[in-house]
């Protein structure tokens, strides 16, 4: 059962990617991709149900291990993946029509999209930290090609920086992984099990603390680069702003989560062997720095997609901060924030994408009165911005509340308050820009773009899901988050 689901999970997108390249089927590339994404989603949901009902699962000779933490990440990837693919249909048509994209690149785009999804879904389900590293590196290589799908100088520049920084960073992570292996091999032998999460978790307390400290430093800097933690975040705004908007949605919405997932797994091991304070202090430091550094770039920002990208930096910082503050409340808040951010940010990127296409610019100065010209996009921009700003009833309010209350109950009040102040500044500037974009007087002679059903669906589904988990979170969702939080907390 679980084996079938997992194989479906990985096989579906890869199969789609291959089928798309069959000459006859190229013109159905979009629909095939959608089909693949759907299948992925279904298998993800099946896995989730299985895990939530019967606890963590391993299969394929323990190469695959799925627990609640994996499930949360996995389902997010699948959902956002489906929405992004759905959103790609009108988006890519528009790009091809307007000549931004060569028509023969469209099938390539969809194949790469599917491969991208495949590499991402592997990350949370593998048991072996080494394979996980391989998968994450693979996401870099594939998404780099997606970022540069437009053959312009700027997209090439963004892709290049992404490739260079991503690879160097990931190399650091590899070094950290090696050290973990080094620390564990005396206990577990030289076999692959020495990088298997389940085995490592069992012996985590006995791992050499010095080695694990050094290892965590490298892992944090390495995967932190992919997470977009400052000061390793520099590639992120470029890549996220140059990529096609659906890809930006995936990059910002779920790819960052994958890297963060890796960091959190390692955090558990380090905490177990070297004491949790060490890892948590590093997470808090990076989190706070990321939030703080994002603020000035948000205050003075003209490019709407760069603005959203910097908000990803900020929110990854928030999640790291919450995870570092720890405690039941802090960790739950971290998971909740992660979910809320994925849904909100992906929807925002896709809404912004349609606006950018309609106005043919990314500059917010030349993007005014959206709510009058394109009511749906404008409204979803505003709603998304309000959600991202942590206003009730959206979940980010609850999670940020949890962050502060956790910080006080764990005696890190000052950190919590400073963090909240920075968050508020970032949110304020986001609202400032968004309100101007949505409500300004539109340029004379601007005509309303027509709204495609696919766009409407793909933008509104994440928002509706966000509302669901914000206002009436289902019991399953709650228990999944609790389990995930307790996994990060290190108490199985």
């Amino acid at each position, binding site marked *: 059962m679980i084996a079938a689901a997992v194989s479906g999970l990985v096989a579906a997108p890869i199969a789609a990617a291959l089928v798309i390249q069959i000459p006859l089927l190229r013109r159905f590339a979009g629909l095939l991709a959608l089909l693949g994404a759907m299948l992925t989603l279904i298998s993800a949901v099946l896995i989730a149900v299985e895990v939530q009902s019967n606890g963590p699962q391993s299969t394929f000779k323990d190469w695959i291990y799925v627990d609640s933490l994996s499930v949360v990440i996995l389902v997010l990837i699948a959902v956002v993946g489906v929405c992004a693919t759905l959103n790609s249909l009108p988006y890519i048509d528009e790009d091809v029509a307007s000549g931004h994209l060569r028509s023969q690149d469209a099938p390539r785009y969809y194949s790469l999209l599917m491969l991208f999804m495949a590499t991402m879904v592997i990350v949370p389900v593998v048991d*072996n930290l*080494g*394979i996980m*590293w*391989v998968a994450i*590196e*693979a996401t870099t*290589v594939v998404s*780099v*090609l997606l970022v*540069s799908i437009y*053959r*312009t*100088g*700027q997209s*090439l*520049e*963004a*892709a*290049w*920086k992404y*490739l*260079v920084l991503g*690879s*160097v960073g990931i*190399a650091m992570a*590899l*070094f950290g*992984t*090696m*050290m973990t*292996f*080094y620390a564990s*091999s005396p206990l577990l032998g*030289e*076999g*692959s099990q*020495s*990088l298997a999460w389940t085995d490592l978790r069992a012996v985590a307390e006995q791992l*050499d603390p*010095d*080695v694990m400290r*050094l290892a965590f430093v490298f892992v944090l800097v390495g995967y932190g680069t992919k997470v977009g933690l400052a000061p390793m975040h520099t590639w992120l*705004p*470029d890549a996220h*702003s*140059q990529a096609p908007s659906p890809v930006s949605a995936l990059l910002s919405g779920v790819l960052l989560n994958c890297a963060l997932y890796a960091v959190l797994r390692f955090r558990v091991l380090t905490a177990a062997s070297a004491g949790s304070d060490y890892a948590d202090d590093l997470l808090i430091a990076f989190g706070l720095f990321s939030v703080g550094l994002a603020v000035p*770039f948000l205050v*003075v*920002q003209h490019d709407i997609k*760069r603005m959203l990208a910097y908000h990803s930096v900020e929110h990854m910082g928030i999640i790291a901060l919450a995870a570092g503050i720890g405690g039941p409340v802090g960790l739950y808040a971290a998971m909740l924030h992660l979910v809320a951010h994925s849904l909100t940010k992906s929807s925002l990127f896709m809404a912004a994408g349609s606006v950018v296409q309609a106005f043919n610019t990314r500059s917010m100065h030349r993007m005014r009165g959206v709510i009058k010209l394109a009511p749906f996009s404008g409204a979803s921009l505003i709603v998304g911005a309000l959600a991202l700003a942590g206003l009730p009833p959206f979940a980010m309010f609850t999670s940020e509340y949890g962050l502060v209350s956790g910080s006080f109950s764990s005696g890190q009040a000052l950190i919590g308050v400073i963090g909240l102040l920075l968050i508020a500044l970032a949110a304020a500037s986001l609202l400032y820009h968004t309100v101007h974009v949505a409500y300004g007087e539109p340029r004379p002679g601007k005509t309303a773009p027509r709204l495609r059903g696919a766009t409407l669906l793909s933008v509104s589904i994440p928002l509706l899901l966000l509302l669901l988990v914000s206002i009436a979170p289902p019991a399953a969702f709650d228990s999944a988050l609790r389990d995930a939080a307790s996994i990060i907390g290190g108490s199985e």
Partner: protein
Amino acid sequence: MSEALASNLIDDFAIGMVIAGIGIIWARSLGWALILIGLQSTLLAGAALGAALATDSTHILAGAALTLAVKSIVAPTVLWLVLLRLRTSHDVQASIGQRTGTVIAIAMALVFGQSLDASPFRTAIGAERVLPTAITVMTMGIMVMVTHRQAIIQIVGFLMIENGMALAALTATYGMPLVVELGIFLDLLLAVFVVFVYSGRMHAIFGSLDTHELRTLKG
């Protein structure tokens, strides 16, 4: 062979890699840089071979073979092809001078040799100096990436980092599990391929491989 001999062998190979690294920083022609990185990778393979023989473990042997194949043959060749295909100048453009760079590199080698104690790394075969050496190689690679401008030589720097880590892995930790190794090399190949593609586009768009062209995205 005896462990002591093996460990000396590894040490010598490692030192050789550092010297090759300094050579790359010293080099003023892309061609030389490619040859030197190939040499460095071969030295790495040698070190791996040493470790393999010392601990007669097959998967380190496999690792050594892969290293030889991918890093010291395929990757430099691909980059060489790029140079041939694009017919750009082979002069290295660096933002710091030849001598300064070299001096800094040597200084780094010494500093790291001392500052970063190898205490947690009592390697099975007692090659004490290996980890500092590995980190030195990595740092040199980063230095190359930071100071040199052409896309090609930046990749050379990246390969140096990889070499440094592989060195650490091979000698300090018996190398990684074979599956992981395979994955790593696969990714490396993919990356090199992407670079191959991009350098083509970059030359097509900017007429050079100078990464200083890539500074339009700001703020």
